[in-house]
């Protein structure tokens, strides 16, 4: 019941916003997102106390072609749900003073997206997962098309076609495995069983098809070309949803649908994916170093982090998986933080080209301080949430593939280079003509940043809260594979 509620509240709120939200968009949206968060905590409680009756819903839908409406929440799903429900009020709140046209439509689309993303996190039926996975694409497409910056028509189109193209391969792979099930079923356990019985080479093909869809969404080199421009033209709430929440659908899908379905394929050919991911990390990190624009820098650094997560997942051991899950949460929080910092600067300066900025710390030291903590977390300093995830990830990856791990470890060093350099150029140094006009943060902006920073430090000091949620589910998953 709770799981269903998690999907229905955002869908219902989006209908409410479309229909009646014109005058009270902010109030409706914020209340709904907080209510959703409350339900997520109730679900967390149910997960930890093991009340399966509250979580599992399994109803026939298109029964004669083996499609059921089966949703359930386990630890892994729970963490993803928490990530999206936690970020949602934050993203809403961050956009309150930003004067978007037709705010109610924007929020309505965001809720539609949240509902479908959460749906994909809890779906236990392959077809259902695919549907939710695709539904999420439509609202974000319209968000960027209607509220985006210059050249958005072309950029969004590339984004849409690219992701749709990738997911078609996933659909084909799903149908292929579905046709192998004895009684034609899309149920997750039936698909697992059918996938594991495939010969290794076929498993590898299924893995490749799924990975293509996920690699485009994360994104991973060389399927990332849509991402920097899309992030650049997207409005801030949209890009926060995209990089903070939506990219996690792909890494989650890798854990839920690929690892247990084609374990032998991963064992034999997974190294190719790890190599791709590591290339992605290095490539994106190097590109980040030479970026002139802060928003592009965030976009590329996001590719680097997603590459690390993907490598950790494919390595497929307890540490690397736990690390990946932790890093997914941290990346979600940090990237929202970074994009909010970008939003603050861009709103005041009208540019995010780093060279033109400088000396902002002298004008607003508390902003500089909060920004600095986010930077520290992105470069994975101990006692920040970024550290826990990357540390576990790299240990886990080391066990699987020492060479890959050492290259992946470079990401931290390169991260220091580009993050500190950008911080230095924008915040330190002399105040110039442009930045002299930098007004202090408003209360609302400060609160948003403080919440983010609190999350960063809280989870960094006491990561056990997060790791505890997923631990048993990760164990179950690994046992199933062996």
């Amino acid at each position, binding site marked *: 019941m709770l799981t269903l509620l998690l999907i229905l509240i955002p869908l219902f709120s989006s209908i409410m916003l479309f229909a009646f939200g014109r005058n009270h968009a902010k109030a409706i949206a914020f209340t709904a997102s907080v209510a959703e968060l409350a339900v997520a905590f109730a679900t967390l409680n149910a997960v930890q106390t093991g009340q399966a009756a509250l979580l599992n819903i399994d109803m026939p839908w*298109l*029964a*004669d*072609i083996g499609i059921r409406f089966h949703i359930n929440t386990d630890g892994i799903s729970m963490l993803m749900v928490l990530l999206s429900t936690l970020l949602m009020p934050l993203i809403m709140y961050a956009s309150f003073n930003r004067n978007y046209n037709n705010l109610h439509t924007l929020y309505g689309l965001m809720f539609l997206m949240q509902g479908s993303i959460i749906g994909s996190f809890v779906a236990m039926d392959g077809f259902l997962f*695919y*549907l939710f996975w*695709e*539904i999420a*694409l*439509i609202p974000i497409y*319209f968000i960027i*098309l*209607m509220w985006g910056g210059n050249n*958005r*028509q072309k950029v*969004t*189109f590339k984004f*849409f*076609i690219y992701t*749709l*193209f990738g997911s*078609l391969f996933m659909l*084909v792979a799903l*149908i292929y495995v579905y*046709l192998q099930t004895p009684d034609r079923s899309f149920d997750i356990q039936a698909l697992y069983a059918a996938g594991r019985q495939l010969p290794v080479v076929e498993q590898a093909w299924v893995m490749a098809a799924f990975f293509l869809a996920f690699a485009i969404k994360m994104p991973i080199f060389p399927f990332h070309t849509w991402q920097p421009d899309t992030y650049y033209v997207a409005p801030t709430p949209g890009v926060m949803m995209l990089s903070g929440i939506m990219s996690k659908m792909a890494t989650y899908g890798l854990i839920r649908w690929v690892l247990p379905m084609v374990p032998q394929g991963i064992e034999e050919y997974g190294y190719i994916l790890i190599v791709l991911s590591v290339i992605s990390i290095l490539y994106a990190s190097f590109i980040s170093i030479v970026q002139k624009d802060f928003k592009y820098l965030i976009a590329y650094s996001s590719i680097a982090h997603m590459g690390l997560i993907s490598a950790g997942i494919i390595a497929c051991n307890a540490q690397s998986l736990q690390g990946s899950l932790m890093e997914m949460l941290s990346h979600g929080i940090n990237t929202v933080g970074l994009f909010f910092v970008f939003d603050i600067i861009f709103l005041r300066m009208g540019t995010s080209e780093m060279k033109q900025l400088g000396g902002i710390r002298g004008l607003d030291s508390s902003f500089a301080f909060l920004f600095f903590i986010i930077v520290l977390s992105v470069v994975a300093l101990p006692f920040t949430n970024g550290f826990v995830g990357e540390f576990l990830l790299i240990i886990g990856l080391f066990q699987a593939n020492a060479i890959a791990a050492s290259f992946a470890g470079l990401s931290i060093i390169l991260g220091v280079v580009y993050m500190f350099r950008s911080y230095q150029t924008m915040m330190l140094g002399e105040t110039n003509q442009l930045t002299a006009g930098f007004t202090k943060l408003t209360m609302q902006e400060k609160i948003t940043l403080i919440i983010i920073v609190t999350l960063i430090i809280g989870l960094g000091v006491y990561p056990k809260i997060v790791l505890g949620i997923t631990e048993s589910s990760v164990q179950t998953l690994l046992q199933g594979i062996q």
Partner: protein
Amino acid sequence: MKELLLISGLGVLSLLSGLLNLRKGFLLIVILGLLGNIGLSIADWNLNEDVYGMMLMDNFALAFNIVMSVSAILWFISASSYFNNDNNFSDHFSLVLFSMCGGLVLLSYSNMSMLFLGIEILSIPLFVLVGSDKTKLSSNEAAFKYFLLGAFATAFLLFGIALIYGATGSFQNATIAAKLSEGPANAMAFTGMLLMLVAMAFKVSAAPFHFWAPDVYQGAPSYITAFMATVVKTVAFAAFYRLFSSTFGSMQAEYRIIFAAIAALTLLIANFTAAVQTNVKRLLAYSSISHAGFMMIALLCMANNTSGILLYYVLVYSISSIAAFSIFEIVRTQSNGKEDIDAFKGLIRRNRWLAGVFAFSMLSMSGIPPMAGFMAKYLVFTAAIDNGYMWLALIGIVGSLIAVYYYFKVIIAMFGHESDEAPISITASQKFILVLCALGLIALSIFPNLVINQLG
């Protein structure tokens, strides 16, 4: 039988409507009549009424009759402005209704002569309707073209029927089917089947017999185009399915490869050509042809009894087409008759209902999940893969991707651009029909079983 009497009765009544001074409420009468037609079909369900050995009202015919009536009701509401601003009010009403009579005969024929009559009764009013925009040259041209090529197709059909008669000695479907299944098909029967296939492919505008469709669809008044793309296509496909599943069922080995080739050609030609169109009406015409390609796949897999899938596909396609064509017509009249994609720029700022529902139906037609159009395509693809036509499914997927390209050209124009044109106001009935179409599509995407399980 009752269904046929009802619709032809409505047609006669519409001829008298001027005399009886029914003009104002006539739309309502027609809609009630069509609702009655749906009711009669439901009442006759499972009865398999045999009409003098000429028509068989089996569940297949009744289900398609219901779909035809649903599309027709939606169409009549959306086209009310076509009838209202019209001196030939009663003529147009009666032509449409008589055309539907032909449709009903086509859905249920069990004798070759009825197939022929059905096609003629369906088509002759259409020739007139296509040319009903009398002052417009393109409308006249379209009517003429349609008539000439239609006459050709009819000749093919008749010749085919004659050859089949020669080979089997009967006009009755059941007798022909029994004779044909006795032994391997002889050359005469095969040629006859081939000729009839050509004629039917012409009627459903499948490549390479589709050349008439873009010009006729573009030249005809938009509402008539919508009628042809929905109601007429529904019955043409039903007749096609009926002919080849029952009568020529034993010749599957011979015709399957032809069907597959037609489907592949239609998908490729229509989608590639649609991708370069800038005229929205012509784009919709090509998209209509490309959907014929998908439905051809459902026909091809008829050994697995895919009539339910065909029914679902046709219904989903008809509803989204009616929405699309009527929005197109509203926008066209508000933009000084411009039919280009440019006319749609910034439509969201001019009227969000029009832009929203148009985008909705385009998303559905391009098969984006979770829209009903996706379910329809998904079912068709799995049927194709099940029957060993993986390559055809792949062509279909490529076709859908190209389709995304051209549908999204329009969506981008509507949502991604500003507009300084005046806002468009729409009437309550227009808004009603748009919302009804959108809700219908949503319902169909959530409960596809309700439709599919009625057949097969």
